[in-house]
């Protein structure tokens, strides 16, 4: 453990990670049963908070067609085709009701389903891989406390060649780096908390970054904005470029995350309005941590507008 963060929430899981990994290995060796963690009311409450911070409902509830919460089925239109989000309610047939703790962690950490298939990165395990085991199990505790929804999953409708699922194996070798968020001990506690919220749980980069033709985030332009993001929508540059957040104060960023208002008096719309509905419910300290982390980002030029994007 060469690096260490001072915050209790971050430290504890880091100490426990090797231990729980051992336990998991032992449990798997003993017939595929996973780590047992006692589900407490506290775990459910913490999970509810994480569920909000990760904005899970925006994708896993088909609000537009009055779908039941967590029932999935929301169409997510992308440049690669349309994804239909899965049911994440504890329904045993259609949802995740039969998942063990180990299977749940594996889905987020490795992007692998209980039946061993690789997930498309439309499920942002590329970010969630940074979540701690404890946070993941708290999230599971919350999801399992919700009513099951008997809605069957719809298959994705993807363009060729993205429809070839086994291609995700080489894709992961090229683009996916697994592992819980490690933090930077040379930075303040707030920065570390903000980094964890932005990079892992909040998965901000999944929408605010451009992707290459294979659907992987262009690293050099991470958080520098996108023109043709999910649902064909653009998302702005949120680095410290003077035309991005460079002139915003931490208070301005906190105000946006709380009330949806920009320093110009505009109110965010579209997908970001859904995000703000959730960030508004976070603790002040967490919104502040996000702002501190974003203010410490280096400036990047905005992603250039592709010729094909009409708006």
């Amino acid at each position, binding site marked *: 453990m060469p690096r260490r963060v001072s915050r209790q929430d971050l430290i504890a899981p880091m100490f426990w990670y090797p231990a729980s990994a051992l336990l998991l290995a032992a449990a798997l060796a003993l017939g595929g049963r996973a780590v047992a963690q006692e589900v407490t009311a506290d775990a459910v409450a913490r999970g509810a908070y994480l569920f909000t911070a990760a904005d899970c409902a925006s994708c896993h509830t088909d609000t537009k067609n009055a779908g039941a919460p967590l029932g999935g089925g929301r169409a997510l239109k992308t440049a690669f085709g349309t994804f239909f989000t899965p049911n994440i309610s504890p329904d045993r047939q259609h949802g995740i009701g039969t998942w063990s703790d180990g299977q749940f962690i594996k889905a987020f950490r490795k992007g692998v389903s209980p039946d061993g298939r690789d997930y498309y990165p439309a499920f942002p395990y590329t970010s969630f891989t940074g979540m701690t085991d404890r946070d993941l199990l708290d999230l599971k505790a919350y999801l399992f406390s919700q009513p099951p929804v008997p809605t069957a999953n719809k298959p994705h409708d993807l363009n060729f060649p993205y429809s070839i699922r086994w291609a995700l194996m080489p894709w992961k070798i090229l683009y996916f780096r697994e592992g819980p968020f490690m933090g930077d001990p040379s930075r303040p506690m707030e920065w570390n908390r903000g980094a964890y919220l932005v990079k892992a749980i909040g998965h901000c980069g999944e929408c605010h970054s451009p992707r290459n033709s294979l659907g992987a985030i262009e690293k050099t332009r991470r958080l520098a904005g996108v023109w043709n993001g999910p649902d064909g929508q653009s*998302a702005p540059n949120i680095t410290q470029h003077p035309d991005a957040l460079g002139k915003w104060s931490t208070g301005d960023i906190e105000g946006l995350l709380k009330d*949806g208002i920009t320093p*110009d*008096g505009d109110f965010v719309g*579209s997908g970001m*309005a859904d995000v703000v509905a959730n960030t508004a419910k976070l603790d002040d300290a967490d919104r502040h941590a996000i702002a501190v982390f974003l203010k410490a980002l280096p400036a990047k030029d905005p992603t250039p507008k592709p010729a094909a994007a*009409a*708006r």
Partner: protein
Amino acid sequence: MQTWRWKFSLGAAAALAASIALMAAVKADDLASVVAERQAGMKAMGGKLKEIKAFAESGAGQAEASADAAVLVATAKSIPGWFPVGSGLDSFSGKTAAKPEIWNDQAKFKAIAATFQADTVALQQAIAAGDKAGASSAFEAMGREGCGACHGAFRAKT
């Protein structure tokens, strides 16, 4: 006789077609100016909101905030009129982010507009009373139920 009649109806049809084309052109022009007008209106409103927010946060500048709130109350009433049929992004691609849902779900659009109008009045009253905390919560409610709700559902831009 027959020829005359034929020619006349042809001429009438041509005139009719020309006037329809002209009307359509004028209409498209009107719609383009509506788009420009509502964008200017929204921007102006943003400026007022900034000043009102400053009052809600600091309690200073009550007179200015009151004047702004009066403009806001009036503007809120004109917003539904800024969105005539045909002024959405399917007609003005790249110029506006007004989603077709505005016209496909008029009930929701009007409900949000009505809430927004009521919220601006509540905000105006709190400012008039010099009630900083009240203005702050009224501002927050207006932003969430009015501005944010409408932009979230009906604007194809973050």
